[in-house]
């Protein structure tokens, strides 16, 4: 098992490397380089020397040297080596602040939204999925399945917009604007996050509901469930103690696979509800062509996704004794 974990952790490195190369190159291929934008913006006020700005931002060297410098294998312009491998993600090209601090200030918002969204989505999906499977083809099942597909069909950005628009029109309510950290005021913080989390969670709940139902249906036909029924156990015991545990294992895999998609949902939610999270950071940085911020944020995302995948696989191995990781 330990060997497996080590092997997986080692495999992360080429994956992250490839991810970083993809992002690094694509963002620099976007037309309208940052130099042009800067010159356009500041050229009216002061005489801007394009070459000087380029060399200051480190963009006057070929792209592979830029990449090497960013990773931390090629020395920077002043001779020192500092890059990702040394823990330095560079500075924002626009603001000059270190990328790590920008990520550090926006990461808690995204994390809290993700956790709350996950909790809410499973809180909705599991009960409905289980009910739908044990009462298959009844009216309750049809209603539940329709609800699941509606959760997948209704766009998150539309639901969020409705929630922002209509309470404002009907009751004059507007969501709080200033961000209250969780530590200083949990209730106030939750008040701000609960509605975006519900919108995010409902989007994810649809797939989870359907997967839970499918897996439960498969498990409920197994022979050991028939034995449990034959023993005279109550339905609740059969379902909860025998069926659910086995059915949930693939559902965990699905949740793990949903993480990257959830980030996309978060970008939209943060846009609608004006939350200063990483989604907004990346969107603004992409529009501003702030290469270092985008590269740094994507690396962080990539590492988190890969670690979540590893965690999911390990949980899978822990829960299912038939799975043997050599």
């Amino acid at each position, binding site marked *: 098992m330990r060997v497996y974990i080590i092997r997986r952790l080692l495999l992360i490195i080429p994956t992250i490397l490839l*991810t970083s190369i993809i992002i690094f190159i*694509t963002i620099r291929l*976007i037309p309208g380089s940052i130099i042009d934008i800067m010159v356009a913006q500041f050229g009216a006020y002061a005489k801007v020397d394009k070459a000087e700005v380029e060399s200051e931002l480190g963009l006057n060297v070929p792209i592979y040297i830029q990449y090497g410098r960013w990773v931390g294998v090629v020395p920077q312009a002043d001779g020192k080596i500092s890059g990702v491998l040394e823990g330095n993600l560079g500075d924002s090209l626009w603001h000059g602040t270190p990328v790590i601090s920008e990520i550090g200030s926006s990461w808690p918002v995204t994390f809290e939204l993700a956790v709350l969204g996950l909790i809410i989505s499973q809180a909705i999906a599991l009960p409905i999925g289980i009910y739908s499977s044990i009462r298959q083809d009844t009216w309750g099942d049809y209603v539940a*399945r329709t609800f699941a597909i*509606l959760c997948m069909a209704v766009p998150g950005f*539309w639901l969020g917009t409705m929630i922002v628009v*209509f309470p404002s029109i009907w009751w004059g309510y507007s969501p709080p604007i200033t961000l209250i950290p969780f530590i200083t005021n949990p209730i106030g913080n939750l008040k701000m996050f609960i509605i975006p989390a519900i919108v995010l969670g409902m989007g994810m709940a649809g797939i989870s509901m359907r997967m839970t139902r499918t897996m439960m249906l498969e498990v409920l036909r197994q022979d050991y469930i028939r034995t449990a029924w034959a023993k005279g156990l109550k339905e609740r015991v059969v379902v909860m103690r025998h069926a659910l545990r086995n059915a949930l294992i693939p559902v965990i895999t699905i949740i793990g696979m949903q993480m990257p*998609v959830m980030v996309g949902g978060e*970008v939209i939610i943060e846009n609608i509800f004006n939350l200063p999270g990483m989604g907004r950071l990346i969107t603004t940085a992409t529009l501003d062509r702030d290469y270092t911020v985008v590269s740094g944020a994507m690396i962080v995302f*990539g590492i988190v996704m890969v670690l979540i995948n590893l965690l999911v696989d390990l949980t899978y191995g822990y829960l299912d004794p038939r799975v043997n990781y050599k």
Partner: protein
Amino acid sequence: MRNNSSKRKTERKRRSGIINLLARLLKEKPLGAVGLLITLLLLLVGIFANFIAPYGMNAVAAGPSLSAPSIHFWLGTDNLGRDLLSRIIYGARISVIVGLVGAAISVVLSTIIGILSAYIGGAFDLIVQRIVDAWMCIPPLILMMVLISMVGPGMWQVIIIMGLSFGITGSRIVRSSTLSMKANMYLQASRALGCSNIRILTKHILPNIMSTIIILFSTLVPTMILTEASLSFLGFGIAPPAPSWGGMLTGSARNYMFLAPWLVIWPGVALSIVVYGVNVFGDALRDLLDPRLMGGVGRYGVKIKKGDTVKSKLAARSDG
């Protein structure tokens, strides 16, 4: 000795394949029939948008700006005086094209990558899978945002980028299907007989994973429609004044949405209904085409009719 009556019967069955499917859809899965209706409605509205829409796609100042739904403008007008109903009808056309073409591109790409990766195996498979892994690590919406920034907004750019992105991630599914097919003995037998690789691929592997491919396609169409709407919402999709349903929820609409909520209600309703219908239809189609569920005796909850025995069923069959 050939039995002429059985030949006649199989001919009859082959002719009514599609009709048979439709009949089963209506009988066994009423929800799927509703989905089919919605899908057909979407297709018709999309194709005949020119004839259905009361006003033009971009008929500025056709009416007073920001007017509420009325007799002349069934869903109201936006801030430029354009009729909302017409724009939603033309938006259906965009959704149809994006959904179908995008899903088709994506499925073709997935199939090529998946089959080649699984069939060739070895180092090629390892490298390709590492690239696919790296691609899947990046949140798809963000990646597409960056790629769209590269090539600029526009319908065909969005379709190709989405097709590319979902094609690479979908190749995993095709690859696992092909891998399980590859394990079959008869492939080795074919190769021993001297079958070329192309022949094995097209005659043996491809038809057997066709059901996976169809299922992939049916899941991708609504995903494409929703993703395009999300991208347009964020401003990275189809640029205004094109009436993309997602794009109609952003931009100038966000400035006026408190004054004229109908601007943001109806595109979302249209999106929800369409994605719901296509999903439900795809579900029903999958259920009907899934060979594991055919011949449903022994399913949990299926009632066996009294008198249904193998003997009586055989007798009924040979009468045809």
